[in-house]
């Protein structure tokens, strides 16, 4: 009865909420310690004018919010339940096919950004990555489909170069 009219929160994994709360709490403590270091190092006598003031305020606020977050999570779900949820989530995470797909996609992004860009010409890197991504997401063992996806990659690469580099004169990585 008392909850009538109150907005309901979106449902999330409470085990993960607990981890997020603890991580935020740890970050807030680190930020508070760091802000003292900034004050000591920036040669300003008073704290209110030092480079550490704002980080300290942010750290304190984050500490309060994360403490409230953890408290709320634990109040609604005891620690045992949270730990069990974390365990279940880990199993689901490892087994999920969607997660596998997303991870492979992220690996392709990583290779493009960290290994290809700036090392080989932009258009080659882009064509290779686009082809890899399109083939991976839309994989079908058909020559026609593969040829179509490769053509899309080539056309998209050409269009990107034309619009950005040639028309808008935007420098490419």
């Amino acid at each position, binding site marked *: 009865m008392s909850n009538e009219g109150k*907005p309901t929160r*979106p449902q999330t994994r409470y085990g993960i909420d607990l981890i997020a709360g603890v991580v*935020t709490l740890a970050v807030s403590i680190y930020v508070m310690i760091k802000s003292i270091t900034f004050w000591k190092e920036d040669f300003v006598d008073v704290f209110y004018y030092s480079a550490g003031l704002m980080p300290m*305020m942010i750290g304190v*606020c984050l500490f309060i*919010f994360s403490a409230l977050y953890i408290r709320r999570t634990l109040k609604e779900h005891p620690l045992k339940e949270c730990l069990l949820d974390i365990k279940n989530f880990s199993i689901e995470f490892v087994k999920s096919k969607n997660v596998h797909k997303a991870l492979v996609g992220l690996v392709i992004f990583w290779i493009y950004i960290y290994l290809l860009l700036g090392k080989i010409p932009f258009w080659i890197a882009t064509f290779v990555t686009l082809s890899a991504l*399109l083939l991976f997401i839309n994989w079908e063992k058909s020559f026609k489909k593969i040829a179509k996806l490769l053509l899309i990659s080539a056309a*998209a690469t050409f269009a990107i170069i034309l619009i950005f580099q040639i028309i808008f004169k935007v*420098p490419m990585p």
Partner: protein
Amino acid sequence: MDALRFIGEAFAIAFTPAGLLALVLSVFTGLIFGMLPGLTSTMAVALLTGLTYNFSGPLAILSLLAIYIGAISGGNQSAILLNIPGTPASAATAMEGYPLALKGKAGLTIFVATGSSFFGTMISIVCVALFTPILTKFALKFMSHEMFLLALFGIVICGNLTSNGDPLKGWISGFIGLLMSQVGMDTIYSYRRFTYGSINLAGGISLLPVMIGLFGFPEVVKAFSGAKKAAMQQNSKYSIKEGLGILRRNWLNILRSGIFGMLMGAIPGVGEDTGGWLSYWSEKKVSKTPELWTHGCIDGVVSAETGNNAAIGGAIIPVLSLAIPGSTSAAVLLAAFWMHGYRPGPLLMQDTPQFLYYVIVFMVLASCLMWFLGMMISKFSVKVLSVDIRILMPIVFICCVIGAFVVSNRIFDIKLMFVFGILGIIMSFLKMPGAPFLLGIILGNMADENLRRALLLTHGDISIFFTRPISIFFIVVITYLIFTQTPVYARIQDKRDAKKAAARAAKAEAKAKARETEKKD
């Protein structure tokens, strides 16, 4: 008489073949820039400044204002169709626009959003013409500590609005954004904070990689699962009559949001993003159906789009009268004015009195054309979306990479986008909104600089925060909003609810008794 002559001159410039071509191309390019994630209004104005270097002064001003208006408005299309705000100013639009697109109302929503942008710009133009001196005086009344409180207020409100009923997560997101804004050299002593010896981090974290990472990346990665396939392709047709009806029904909303957005734009450093958010928030507060908001409420789209476009005029007011930009885009615009030989500031009306009238006329023409072209482009962009999202998203990813790179030409920014993209995915999983994070990064340095300046002026005396009505207003609202999430408030609320329930039960009992006695009688 001079005013009429200047207005006539401005129309004559705009209706030359070169003027018309510049107007159409600039609005069109602006819309495309605003639409594509990662290409912002700031970038559009900056790029065009170089391209218009050889143009005559008025023609260049026409192009720059047209691209600025187009870009701010164009951001709504990707916000509605892809849930990726093309510009930070459209983040509030995505809140309502995307759910509406999922319901198959993408076309209608874009029509209403573009119409609202038009009306927002028109309201702000009227304000530029009529109220420039008054509003400039008001904006100048904000002291340093109030600017700090305004930034804090923006983040707290944004956290409240975007969290879908869980403000705590919104605030955590906002304060982590604030923390990110502290990376790099501080604005007063150039002391390096959280840089860990990296030269790239010394310049701070650029806004664009964060924006693209937070809003673009999760959407791209989601495409791998194929779960969202065809979600937005249904029934994008709309009736213009229905769209105009919605706009007519929302006339008060448009007026309120327009004035709100314009006021926010006029405050230096606040800009279109806060204009859009605060208009959205104020309208949600007065809405008769607040429960519909964040689930696809067209009124929200109207307020957000009116607010962010009205901020354009607002941002131009201090540029023209004081040479102080109201937003990042306005700062670039100010630089462009200087480049083309105009000197905005207190002496503007004395040195180049025609300039203000040129600006007004060019803005009116650009916003009219923006609505027309915006709707034409929307047909094309909806078609783009009808392409399989699993083919579109890898291409969007490449656009994101270019967008992250283009501002500073650093591969480091692309890497940064990747890192924030991962963070965006985690936040999306935790149902933690990205918008307060972004706003935290935008407002962080302003908050830091103003707080420290205020405390330096008062030698650390914080009583200044309680001496003026503006700051007291901000303090009360911020404290109340945070207090509502504490266990103490929950207990008070529970007690109040219990009392109400008891009173209701007692009333019901009394009524039942009265009925019984009536029956007995």
